[in-house]
Structure formats: C-alpha cells, structure tokens
C-alpha cells in the first residue's frame, strides 16, 4: 500500500507540473502568443467568448502572475478549459466527444499488443538461438517505423488498393448513430485497420523486452529446479514467463506515453474522430485553448493508465506487498 500511495503522490505531482506548464508556457514564450491570439480573433468571436478565453488562460482581470495562476486553477477545477477559437464551442464539450474514440482505440490496441507481444517474446526467449531468432531484425524494423508511416502504408495497401477494410472515419456515414447493431458493426469494421496499425507498431517493443527478460530468467535457478522436478515444458515456460513479465509491466509507464504519442498520429492518418485528429486541426489553426486542453486530457489519461499498471504490478508481484507491510 505504501508503494501505491507513493506512486499516487507522484502522479498528483506530475499532473500539477503539467497543469502549471500549461499555465506558464504561453507566458514564457517570446512574442506573447495569447495577446496575438486575442487580437486575431476579436473580429470573429463575440466579446463574451473572448472574456471566457481570457478567463481560461487566467487573464480575466488586471492581476499579478500569482493571482492569474489561481484564476486559472479555479477555472480548471470548474471544468472550464476555454473556448476553441476555430470551432467556437467549449473545449471541454469538444473533448467529451473525441475522448471515447481515442480511449477505445488506443486502450484496446495497447491491450492487444501487450498480450501478443509478451506471449511472442516469451516464446522467442525460450527458443533463443533457434531459427525464430531471425524474427528479431524484422521486429526491430517495425519498432523503428514511425506509427503514422506504417499507418499510411497500410491505409494505402489494405484500404484503398485491396479494399479489405473500410477507411477514413470511425463508422460508415450511411448508418444512424446509436445503439443499433448496424452502427456497432460498422464501428468495429472501421476500427480494425487503425487498431492493427497501432498493434503492429507497438508490438515489437513489448516482444523484444520480454525476450531479453525471458532469457535472463531462464538462467535462474528456480527454472532449472522446475525442469529438474520434471514439470511439463508448458509449466516451466509459464514459471519463467510469469517472472519475466514483471519488468514489462513496470516499464508500462514509459511505454504508455510512447504508444499514446504514436497512436494519436494514427488517428490523424485514418481521419479517426479522436483526440489525435483534433490535435492536428488545433495545431494547424493555432487554436491554443484546444491544444492545451488536449494536452491536459492526454496527460491525465496517461497518468491514470500508469496508476492502473501499478495496481496490476502490485497484484502480480507479492514481493512488493511484503516490503510494504514491513
């Protein structure tokens, strides 16, 4: 429990750092981007909306930096992330529509790639030195390909050339949205190719990490013991793999950030209506409130995922629990 509390504290501090960075960045940058921004939109947005934007940046009144900071935090606590300049709607409501798509796509693909990669890595580690080793350079290549590039190639090959998968968007434009079978089926069909692209790009990392840990584990005495006892091979592999998987899970914190960063761009390639696509639009239009809102949401989501991984780790590794009890 102590470990969990420590981790939770870390995530709270991280969230605070991210929020503060969001507040400070526009102020530290040369050229005063906020003033430029407000000057630019004065003609297109109502004075009321400008007031809301200034508020969300903590710029509501003529205040010092500290007071601005508190105004900003208060606005944040009330869920006011400002108003998108280009879309004219509150950032929070725009995000509410985009986030479920991203969480669904990235969450599912992370689970798939972790499961397949770990399983494959365990196998590769067990059979090291065999012909399966020739998979390693291939896996390394896939690890090095930028997510968005692989996604583009797949979109081209399997989507527009071979027509195996429907592409562009998250569901067929002809079905009505809602809880009906046709819609759900179309969501699944449209999600397949982006999902495969993300899984393929992130798979190799898990696989190679797991392979190396597995090889290290195989040298341990307890594995030799298991063999000596005459346990069936499957059980021995499971024995070693269960221990090798722990560092993989401990590394999730690094990996989740990377996977999310990559996957956001996959959304962009497929015009998937998630946060990644939104982020590109925001960047292109210099829609600062939207960019900042997206960054905050992504960071908080990644932190939540990290915390989840910590809980799983604690549950899998009894040693951390005993240490905590002492």
């Amino acid at each position, binding site marked *: 429990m102590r470990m969990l509390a420590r981790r939770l504290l*870390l995530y709270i501090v991280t969230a605070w750092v991210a929020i503060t960075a969001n507040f400070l960045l526009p102020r530290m940058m*040369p050229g005063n981007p906020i003033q430029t921004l407000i000057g630019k939109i004065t003609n297109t947005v109502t004075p009321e909306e400008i007031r809301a934007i200034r508020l969300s940046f903590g710029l509501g009144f003529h205040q010092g930096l500290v007071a601005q900071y508190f105004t900003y935090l208060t606005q944040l606590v009330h869920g006011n992330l400002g108003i998108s300049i280009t879309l004219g709607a509150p950032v929070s409501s725009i995000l509410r529509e985009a986030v479920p798509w991203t969480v669904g796509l990235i969450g599912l693909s992370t689970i798939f790639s972790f499961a397949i990669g770990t399983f494959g890595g365990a196998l590769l580690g067990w059979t090291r030195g065999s012909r399966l080793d020739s998979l390693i350079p291939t896996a390394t*290549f896939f690890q*090095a390909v930028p997510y968005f590039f692989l996604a583009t190639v797949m979109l081209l090959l399997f989507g527009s050339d071979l027509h195996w998968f429907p592409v562009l968007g998250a569901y067929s434009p002809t079905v009505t949205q809602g809880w009906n079978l046709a819609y759900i089926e179309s969501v699944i069909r449209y999600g397949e190719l982006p999902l495969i692209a993300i899984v393929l790009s992130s798979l190799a990392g898990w696989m190679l990490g797991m392979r190396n840990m597995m090889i290290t584990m195989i040298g341990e005495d307890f*594995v030799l013991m298991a063999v000596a006892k005459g346990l069936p091979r499957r059980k021995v592999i499971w024995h070693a793999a269960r221990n090798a998987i722990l560092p993989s899970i401990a590394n999730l*914190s*690094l990996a989740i950030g990377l996977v*999310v960063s990559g996957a956001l761009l996959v959304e962009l390639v497929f015009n998937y209506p998630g946060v990644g696509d939104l982020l590109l639009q925001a960047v292109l239009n210099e829609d600062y409130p939207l960019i900042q809102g997206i960054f905050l949401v992504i960071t908080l989501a990644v932190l939540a995922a990290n915390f989840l991984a910590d809980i799983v780790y604690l549950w899998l590794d009894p040693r951390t629990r005993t240490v905590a009890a002492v």
Partner: protein
Amino acid sequence: MRSLRLPRSPKVIIGLVIVGFFIIMTVIGPWLAPYDPSSTAFAPLLSPSAHHWLGTTSLGQDIFSQLLVGARATMVVALLAGLAATILSMTVGIAAGYLGGWSDEGLSLVSNVFLAIPGVPLLIVIDSYLPVNSRSNFFVIGLIISLTGWAWGARVLRAQTMSLRNRDFVEAARIIGEKRTRIMFTEVAPNLLPVLASSFLFTVLYSIGAYVTLAYIGLTSTAVWNWGTMLYWAQANNAPLSGEWYWFVPPGICIALVGTGLALVNFGIDEFINPRLRAGGLTARQRRQLGLPRRIRLGLTPVLHASSKPKIVPAHAKLVSQ
C-alpha cells in the same frame, strides 16, 4: 590482458553498417544532391526516371535531392537531442544514485515526473508556441526534444550507479578523500559506459521519431528540409491516396532504417552488458566453432573464450590426468 571484443554478432554488424551509411549521407548528402531541393524548375509529379531517381513533387521539386538534403537536418537534430539528453540524464542519474538520501528523492521525483508526462504531446504544445524563426533552429528544437527524452536514461543510470557506489574502488576513492563530483565523473561514470552508450542510442532513436513527428504535423519550419517535412508535403498533397508512393515511401523507409540500425547496435550493447543474451546472437557455425552445444540448453549460461577453443573434456578424465 583482455582484448576488446569486436562485435561478433551479425545483428550488430548490420546495425553498424546501416548507421554508418546514414552518417555518411548526413555529411555528404547535401553535396551529392543533384538539384536544389526547393527548386520548382521541373514538371510536377514525374514518376521515377534516370533524371529524377525518385520523381518530383506536385511543385516540381526533385524528391531524391530532398531525401539527400533532408538527411542532415534529421540526423543533426537527433544527434544534438541525444547528446543533450545523455548529458542531462548522466548528471541527474549518477548524482541521484551516488548521493542517495534526499537528493535522490528529489532528482528521482523530477525524472519520474518527466517520464510520466507523455513526451510528444508536450513537445507539440511547446512547439506550437515557438515563434517561426525558432522552429527552424536545430539547437532550439534539439534541446526541446532532449527535455522530453532524458528521463529514461537517468532512471537506468541511477540504478546502475547504486549498484556501483559501494564497490571497493569507489570506497577507496572516498577514503583517499576525492571530491564527490570527481568520484562521480571519473570513478563511477566510466564504468557506466555501456549503459550510457545504450541510453544515447535509445535517445537518438526517440529524437528522430519526435522530430519527424513534429515535422509531419507541420510544426517545424517548412523551409528546412528533413524527412518529416517531406512526409508532411506528401500528406498535404494527398500523395498516399493518389498512388505517388515514390513521394512518401522513401523518407519513411529511411527513418525506419536508421532506427533499425540504431536498435541493432543497441542489441549488441545489451549483449555486452548481459552475457546471457550473448549466445543468442551467434550463428550456428560460430557456436560450433566456440565449442558450444548445438542447442543451448536450459540453465546453461554459455561462457565464451576469446582466445582458445575450449575442448570438451569429460570431468573424470580431467581428474585422472591431475
């Protein structure tokens, strides 16, 4: 005397060759480029031919020239970022691991915070606020990327330093009365060289990805040619969907190849750090030459001798001869 073991595994050699090739391309690429990459003097959207090896863009620019010129920006930014991040992670990691106590708590907290914040989204936020002239500055971009990429190395180096800090030679240096900074950088750091090298390669790999990503979404100056900008223009002109593969495939393949090369070299370093991984990198023939069993059996950590071929002598025969 132990001679330095040259990389034996084919993986490492392939990796070194690939990385070497792209480093040469970084240095001489812009001179080799047949045309000015920005010149719009040619017919648009030509297919690859003897004059234009990779065809031309929709503006009539030579794609092969862009690829050659773009190598420099891509690699230089990645190397700069890798270097800066490695220096940062070395300082933080070794200090945290060696000093321990509250300094460790503080430094670890900082690196864990940076590790937990997703790097690329943070980069996008910072970069979107940058004035346009800074976006084309290699140093500015490299430093910003390094800021989001140093934490992992710091964590690994901290762990390694902790395992070294109580070794006899460090203890001895402490008793002699060496200064702490001196111990950290002249006693501890050299022993971390393989880990440092691995962390450097890893960061360069990350930096290439980050830089290309920023360029791809149009956040670096479009006046500087790099592989990401090429992909940006290809995407902006719908090259993938209209079948102009020669426009967007080459830069993507180059990025992937550099990454593969770096990762393969890293494999070699991993095998150096962790000998158990080493035998996996040998071919069947090399294993036979080294007198290792054909199939590496469980629990056996193969010991490789650099000088002599060990003969397998039955244990009882050895006893008799003694």
